[in-house]
């Protein structure tokens, strides 16, 4: 993937209040309770990512946007780490 394209997606996510976890390699937003893996961000289009960011369906649980959906155990682990 083009570096410029990745930089644009990073700007979109950061502009929407997402931070990057260097340890888990995901973009996450505690208020929105959403996390995007780097693989997912690389794989999907800017439009798709923007749409997922905009989707404000209320959720008390973390939502993980991964290329390969994580198992329940990994979701629990990440939810604990991301807070």
């Amino acid at each position: 993937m083009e570096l410029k394209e990745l930089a644009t997606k990073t700007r979109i996510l950061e502009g929407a209040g997402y931070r990057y976890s260097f340890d888990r390699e995901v973009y996450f937003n505690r208020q929105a309770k959403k996390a995007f893996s780097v693989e997912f961000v690389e794989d999907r289009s800017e439009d798709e990512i923007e749409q997922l960011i905009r989707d404000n369906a209320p959720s008390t649980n973390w939502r993980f946007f991964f290329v390969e959906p994580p198992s329940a155990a990994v979701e629990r682990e990440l939810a604990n780490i991301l807070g």
Partner: protein
Amino acid sequence: MEGRTVEDKLREEYFEILPEIRAVCEHLEAEIKYRVLPISHSLDRFERIIVRSRVKECESALDALRRRQEGATFDPERAEAYTLRSLKDLAGVRILAFPRARLGEIDAALRNVFDNWTEDPVLGDNGEKLAFKYWGFSAASNEISGEYQISMLTGLFWEVEHSAIYKPSPQLRGVVRSPKMREPIANVLKALSAFDEEFELSIQQPL
């Protein structure tokens, strides 16, 4: 045993296989130095070939395996699915050569010996080859693979990156791998590559 994490299991595995990793590393280094010797003997005064080997450290191996998982997280319910033996670079040898013309020569000499090893070149963001890289099994072990890499100055950058950042603080590996750091790293590699090329062209001119 209850309460053991995936990391605990992998640490135990690491120390079980450490003697074998060391054996692979020593074997690989000796074999490569021997095969490169005829080229080393024919070098001009300004030319260099440096062969260095290293055994991947325990925490670095764990971290590398963890970062292979999406979300850089082990699934605690699939602990048996993870093994450090899947890492190709537990034992690694780096060959640094100057000038660039020597790289192909070294590569050809080693390909004769490691002819069944798998090519896995290090590529830049534009698909250009930054280093020759191969992995495979040696006579020292059929369970632990080894890896060797042949590069020019770019290899020195990776060594600096490793000794200055990863070794003292392995957790900073994630910073260097982050999307934001990819562009500056690509720029450093591009600059080193341009230096290599220009220097090589210059020394070919008559004095």
